């Protein structure tokens, strides 16, 4: 893509029918550090690489909780991503307030896409320079969507965005057919493998990545560093290679419950003693 006379305004078409400003915005997404998402029928896992600009600074937050049942991972202009996350949180809260029910992720994604489209059709605006991997729950189960600066959105079984995401995508293309029925643990493992692909040889540790999970019966939360490191250690002890596509997990007999599993397995308060039944 080279500079040309049709790329100054987002409201100028090129003779070939392209909006260059929108395409440049999508380039910005490719420059950000990698973000990966995958989903099964019941869970969504989001993963991102933590890139700090220097050793002295902390890394940019790239994964946001939008609601108990929706989370988003971003790549590109993180400031734009932050603003859009705030919009998404607002929409979820408003819907919950009116309907006492979680906003279906499919509808949030359309609202987000429509918001992005506006910026492609106003001369005084610019497109958002961020790509969003939105994972969330719906009436029909778990979903993963990718929202573009162009205002398009797509549903995915698994996807990766940002720099060196192609390596992750290649891995995911090999494995994705098994994801729908994958267990939560295997889904997280696959996310870590995919993330590792984007590091191109650099050692994968929990310090340079962030993993978040959500699912049916499990609120969105970011896994803590210890848990993630535990998972990484598991598959690094067994062997560097990810399991064959026949998906015989190499470590089911290892302490597969290394993660404290924040999933709410225990429901409700313990049985009360000394409370009389309500007669009225």
């Amino acid at each position, binding site marked *: 893509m080279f500079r040309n006379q049709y790329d100054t305004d987002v409201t100028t078409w090129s003779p070939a029918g392209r909006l260059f400003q929108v395409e440049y915005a999508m380039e910005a997404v490719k420059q950000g550090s990698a973000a990966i998402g995958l989903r099964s029928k019941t869970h969504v896992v989001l993963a991102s690489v933590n890139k700090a600009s220097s050793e002295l600074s902390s890394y940019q937050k790239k994964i946001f909780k939008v609601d108990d049942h929706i989370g988003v991972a971003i790549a590109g202009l993180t400031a734009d991503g932050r603003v859009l996350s705030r919009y998404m949180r607002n929409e979820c809260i408003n819907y919950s307030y009116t*309907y*006492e*029910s979680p906003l279906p992720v*499919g509808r949030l994604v*359309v609202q987000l896409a429509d918001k992005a489209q506006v910026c492609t059709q106003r001369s005084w605006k610019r497109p958002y320079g961020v790509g969003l991997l939105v994972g969330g729950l719906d009436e029909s189960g778990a979903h993963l969507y990718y929202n573009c600066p162009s205002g398009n959105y797509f549903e995915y079984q698994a996807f990766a965005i940002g720099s060196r995401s192609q390596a992750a995508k290649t891995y995911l293309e090999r494995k994705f057919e098994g994801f729908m029925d994958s267990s939560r643990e295997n889904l997280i493992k696959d996310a870590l493998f995919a993330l590792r692909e984007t590091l191109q040889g650099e050692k994968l540790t929990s310090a340079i990545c962030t993993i978040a999970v959500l699912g049916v019966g499990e609120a969105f939360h970011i896994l803590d560093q210890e848990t993630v490191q535990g998972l990484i250690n598991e598959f690094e002890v067994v062997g560097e290679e990810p399991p064959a596509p026949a998906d015989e997990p190499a470590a089911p007999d290892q302490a597969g419950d290394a993660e404290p599993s924040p999933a709410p397995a225990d429901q409700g308060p313990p049985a009360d003693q000394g409370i009389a039944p309500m007669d009225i």
Partner: protein
Amino acid sequence: MNLADSTQAMNNLLGSEADSQRTLYPYVTGTSVVGIKYKDGILLAADMGGSYGSTLRYKTVERLKPVGKHSIIGASGEISDFQEIMRYLDELILYDNMWDDGNSLGPKEVHNYLTRMMYNRRNKFNPLWNSLVLGGVKNGQKYLGTVSMIGVHYEDNHVATGFGNHLARPILRDEWHENLTFEEGVKLLEKCMRVLLYRDRSAVNKLQIAKITEAGVTISQPYALKTSWDLSAFKNPTAGAEGSW
């Protein structure tokens, strides 16, 4: 998507100028609605009367209506306000259907939407003068709730509005149980409606029963209840007070 209220005199909200724009009292009203959960879903009962003060003016007012695929609503109070509420709900369901995405508003969502609406109007001192019963089934989950004109809302296994709270609910507290069959549920509701017919001045002997299950909504044709007035107290009502009528 926002049907804004008509403009109010914002700077004189409680003044006489704005009074003509606010609800002060109801005109044509419906009386009690009674609702119960039963084995397969929800049953609602309401008579078809629209009273104009103490006159039983209209006798074919449908006070039970379906809302989308998963809910039914019953209203007591001002009938014109109920018609307005139905316009809002029909629009809500329309926009919900337009998403065409496999998600739909269930009875819980509709109940909360109504609550927000009623409470909002109450805060503006311009209430929709209704007490509503909202029931439905979605994904096997039964839901039955009520909202009043001031936004008081709750769910229960059996609910009622107006006189129904005083006359029908005590009966339901004694005789309702989980997993009533359809026939048992109807009999129970008819028992409640009969008591209301005897004791509520604004009740008329023409009622409908609405049923909602996972399969859908059915609202019965209007019918009348058998009543028995040959109790001795009714035969000679002035026996203990000669000269009165």
